[in-house]
């Protein structure tokens, strides 16, 4: 999977375009992941599609068209259900991998 600043931005899907056009929240209409970071200790994510890799220093979360890679130290999954998850730990970076 290409990554980094030189990587090509993914094409917008139909629902995303419709949401942008109609000025509607894309996370609701297009089911895009919504990521919320509280300081550098907690990350909350909605509309995830599961965890791809789980470790103390990096956790990869499937966000549909994008993978959210959280790097840091002592990272732990705090809670998780079908739609939401919460991570705890010292968050150093959050990367979107296309």
């Amino acid at each position, binding site marked *: 999977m290409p990554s980094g600043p030189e990587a090509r931005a993914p094409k917008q899907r139909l629902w995303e375009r419709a949401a942008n056009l109609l000025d509607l929240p894309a996370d609701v209409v297009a089911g895009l992941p919504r990521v919320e970071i509280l300081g550098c200790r907690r990350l909350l994510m909605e509309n995830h599609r*599961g965890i791809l890799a*789980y470790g103390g220093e990096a956790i990869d979360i499937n966000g549909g068209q994008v993978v959210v890679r959280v790097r840091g130290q002592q990272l732990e999954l*705090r809670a*998780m259900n*079908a739609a939401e998850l*919460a991570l705890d730990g010292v968050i150093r970076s959050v990367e979107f991998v296309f």
Partner: protein
Amino acid sequence: MVEGGKCVLGVVNYLRGQVEVEIEGTFPERFFNLCSQQGVAFWDLKRQDDTRLRARMHLSGYRRAQACAGQALCTLTLLGRRGAPVLWRRLKKRSMLLAGALAGVAALLFLSRFVWEFEVRGNRTVGADAILHHLAELGVKPGVYGPSVDIETVKNEMLLRIGELSWLTVNIRGSRAVVEVRERAPKPEIRALDVPCNVVAARDGVVTRMETLAGTPQVAPGQTVTRGQLLVSGVVDSRQVGARFLHARARVFARVWRDITAVTPLQTAEKQYTGRVSKQRTLVIAGYRTKISVLDFKFFEKCDKVIKTSTLRLPFGGALPVSLVTETAREYTTRTVPRDREAAATLLREALKRKLAAALGGEGAVLKAGFAETESAAALTVRLLAECEEQVAVQVPLG
């Protein structure tokens, strides 16, 4: 949100029941994904080492999580169960304990309908005991069934029984009744200003000053007056109007001499306790008395009787309808002993001073005072001779 309202969430999790599990596997994320797809929420994940994690999940999701663990090639170990369903399952086997708990709750609900504690508020001159005594006579006493109390009838009866009260209500909250009262304001003295009267002297004395508000003065300062002598006349005669009858009013101050005597015996009876004591303990539960002492209570011919009531109270101050009454009778004999003469004289002098101050009221003043003591065989007599300035005017109706 999975993180929202920790306290509420904690209660919900407790009610739903939760399990603590240990997940062991090379790829625990597969297990997480399968669980989330199956709708099994989990929380409080703690990494034990590279391959082992601990987490909590709802009791209802545990079976599905076991299936997920099998698919994700992980081992799921149950570490513990907790919460209301677990407690219920345990209690279901102990039917008597459950029945006892239910009976306890039922007893609590039933007994809280009865009034066990009374409090009187708002009384100043009327004693709380008197109010509670009258209430008890009307049937409102510890142990009464709260809803059966007819507040309106109690109010009306109580206001008729205790004339000093102007308002009363009984607020029953659970097993506690608060009796709120308001006392009647004393009836003010009404001066019948239309009734003609004279002002006369109440005592013998020498007039020092006069303040005549209505009527014709008949004496002047410096003049000696005797008891009953007319000081201010209520009859005013004039050529233009003729005789008019007034409600004469005046304040007349005079020097008067007071002679007050007090006597006390020089021998007194002193108590000597013999050491014989009789005690009786009674347990009072909701007004019903049960004697718990084995021995019978003895009254001596001469004894001090002390009654001590200890009421059982809850840690936060609420009284329970259980009290222990201890009655103690302590026998004594009396013997006659001589009194200290100087102490007796001091006592009499103080008593005479108090008596004089009470006789003068707020308006009088003592100008000179002296004591004379005489002692007979068995008694000491102290005589107070005081020169005072006091208000001597009193009104008497005409005719």
